[in-house]
């Protein structure tokens, strides 16, 4: 369970948001919406443990977690704006490298299946340099499949994906929630999840 209380963020003198609180249980998703510049990415980075809230607390399974805390690093899979891909490595090498970094095993069979799942099998030996933005995103999706982390934090996950990619993402998030995982996503597009499982948080309205 991911819980946040009275979170606030400021950038310089400007306050992005304050008094943000929510509770997401296993099998649930939180969708963060709001106009540009209202702090969606900032909130997600806090939840991933990449930056510290200016006030408030974040709890994972009842334990308070701060930036880069070990409890959080072991469970979170963060997919931010940046793809974390190396141009010099092939699609497959990039995927294997990211999966091993997350501490999971990356046997060739699993890599094959994950690449098949995101429809990149035929591009696996191409360097990431020549892949399209959508294909780069798909490598990120394959990483989510293999890293086996319970908490997914997705920043604008639909960006650059085509219709089939968006459907794939929706299916992946759905299966992840079915397995008892959690997901927090900042998005403008619908993820196509069952409404009962989704909480929404609209930023940009709490601050007058």
């Amino acid at each position, binding site marked *: *369970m991911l819980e946040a209380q009275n979170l606030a963020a400021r950038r310089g003198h400007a306050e992005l948001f304050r008094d943000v609180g929510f509770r997401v*249980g*296993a*099998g649930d998703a939180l969708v963060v919406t709001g106009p540009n510049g209202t702090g969606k990415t900032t909130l997600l980075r806090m939840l*991933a*443990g*990449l*930056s*510290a809230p200016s006030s408030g607390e974040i709890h994972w*399974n*009842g334990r308070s977690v701060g*930036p*880069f805390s*070990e409890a959080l*690093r*072991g*469970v*979170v899979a*963060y997919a*931010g*704006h*940046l*793809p*974390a*891909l*190396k*141009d*010099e*490595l092939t699609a497959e*090498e990039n995927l294997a*490298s*990211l999966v*091993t*970094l*997350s*501490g*999971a095993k990356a046997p060739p069979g699993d890599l094959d299946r994950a690449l098949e799942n995101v429809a990149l099998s035929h591009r696996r030996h191409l360097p990431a340099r020549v892949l399209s933005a959508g294909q780069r995103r798909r490598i990120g999706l394959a990483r989510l499949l293999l*890293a*086996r*982390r*319970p908490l997914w934090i997705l920043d604008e996950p639909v960006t650059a994906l085509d219709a089939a990619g968006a459907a794939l993402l929706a299916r992946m998030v759905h299966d*992840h929630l079915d*397995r*008892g*995982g*959690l997901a927090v996503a900042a998005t403008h597009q619908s993820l196509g999840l069952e409404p009962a499982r989704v909480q929404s948080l609209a930023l940009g309205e709490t601050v007058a």
Partner: protein
Amino acid sequence: MAAEAPTDAVAPAPPAADGALAGLRWALARDLKLAFRSRAELGVQLLFYVIVVTLFPLATTPERNLLSTMGPGVLWVAALLASLLSLPRLFATDHADGTLEQIALSSYPLEALVSGKIAAHWLTTGLPVVLLAPLLGLQYYMDGESLAILAMGLLIGTPILSLLGAIGAALTLGLKSGGGLLALLILPLYVPVLIFGAGAVDAVRAGLGATANLSLLGAGLALALVGAPFAAAAAVRIALD
């Protein structure tokens, strides 16, 4: 509350000591692979070292005694500059493409991952400098013993350059003119390494033996090995915040 924790999706966390070693190996192997794929860039750095060393005899004097006095100093300064040239890329490319976020969020200790990156940096930039130094030293009429001590000093000293440099590289992450600031920040820290490294050769030429200088370099290396990965990891965390 613990019952709510998802069971199926959780990957077992690796034990701490195991994790540190695995993390170091991951970073070392990946950075070596990346360096090999873009090896032209390493060639440029090495060529820079060779050219700087070669410029001095051309610009000053072909006189034997003068050159053999200058030699160790010139080779050491060139080694510092070559190290400085390659440092900005140590973390900057990972920072720019988002890999550094994933590295900092990995369940491996960040200090271990940073150590692996530093080790790869030394193997690809420091070690070639050490190996080339005796050859380049011939231009300066240095004798066999001086060349051996020079290489030995560089072998102990260049890892210190990579270790200290990593702190500076992490501190200047995300700055527009990071390269220049990095030089200002790191060159003063390089001074003791330069003094003891070049001093070792002078001491041998004066008949004093290089033990004192090399021991001090070794002590510096031990200190940097223990401290630098922690400092660099802390700086990386700050850069991401």
